[in-house]
């Protein structure tokens, strides 16, 4: 327990976090690439096609649609948790984390929408359907963009951090409400949902799980990259940053 606390405190130190993430990143990237290669092999080549609903090969879009949709939600929750840590424990690094998750989360949300739309066209014959999940995803994208816009509108970074953290927390309280409302509204007006999935054929499960793992890792890797840049941005005047910059440029760029 005491060890866990010390770990938590050390993570609060930008220098420690920067060094540690620098050590972790190559491993995370390696694991990501391996999983991606395997996952793509399965999802694009080795997995069967869905004949039942006339989807045929377009079912392969699922292997990126589902992970990005899952990540878009998880990322927002993670952002809100970091925001709470930042506001309650006054941990500045947590704000850097929220700011780092936002663009990657927004990208995932965009990808979920894009792939959902492209998947919808061959399967249901339309690019856009006001279906519950798609609509929630669209609103989630607005929440992300609002967060980024709010953060960018302050000249004082600490104000930007605190204000956008409050927004993230209010947003996360509202996400279930939004989802529930949209779903209710959807059943009222259309009564069907294009992304509602039944029991998943086991043949689809393996590639999906591998792609889920790969995308999670990819997400973490990207967030850590952004976080490292954010830490340097926020600590430009610290001596260790200057030492790092001069040190690594002397050794040749390996970071």
């Amino acid at each position, binding site marked *: 327990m005491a060890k866990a606390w010390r770990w938590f405190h050390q993570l609060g130190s930008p220098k420690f976090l920067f060094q540690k993430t620098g050590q972790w990143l190559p491993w995370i990237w390696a694991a990501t690439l391996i999983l991606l290669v395997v996952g793509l092999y399965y999802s694009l080549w080795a997995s069967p096609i869905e004949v039942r609903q006339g989807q045929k090969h377009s079912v392969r879009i699922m292997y990126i649609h589902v992970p990005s949709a899952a990540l878009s939600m998880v990322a927002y929750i993670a952002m809100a948790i970091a925001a709470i840590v930042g506001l309650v424990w006054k941990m500045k690094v947590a704000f850097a984390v929220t700011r780092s998750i936002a663009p990657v989360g927004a990208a995932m949300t965009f990808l979920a929408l894009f792939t959902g739309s492209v998947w919808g066209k061959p399967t249901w014959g339309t690019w856009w359907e006001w279906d519950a999940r798609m609509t929630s995803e669209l609103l989630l994208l607005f929440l992300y963009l609002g967060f980024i816009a709010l953060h960018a509108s302050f000249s004082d970074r600490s104000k930007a951090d605190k204000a956008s953290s409050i927004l993230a927390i209010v947003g996360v309280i509202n996400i279930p409400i939004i989802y529930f409302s949209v779903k209710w509204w959807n059943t009222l007006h259309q009564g069907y949902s294009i992304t509602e999935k039944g029991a998943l054929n086991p043949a689809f499960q393996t590639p999906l799980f591998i792609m889920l793992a790969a995308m999670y890792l990819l997400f973490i890797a*990207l967030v850590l990259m952004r976080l490292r840049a954010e830490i340097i941005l926020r600590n430009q005047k610290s001596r260790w940053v200057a030492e790092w910059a001069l040190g690594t440029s002397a050794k040749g760029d390996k*970071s």
Partner: protein
Amino acid sequence: MSSWHEFIFMGKHGAYVWSSYLVTFIVLLGLFIGFRIMLRGLKKQVIAEASLKQSEKPKARKLKVSKAEQAN
């Protein structure tokens, strides 16, 4: 999957499948490159500022308190 032909055209759905994968790839690669450029740029900036003369760096200020009996 039985043939390269099928792999590429995906039975008429090739455009949809491949565009999804391609856009995902481009977006994620864009983030990767963007973040990398950001870190590189910051590093350059830090190096440039580190080579500035020490005195030109903005310094924090101190409070100097003096009892003022001579006042007025």
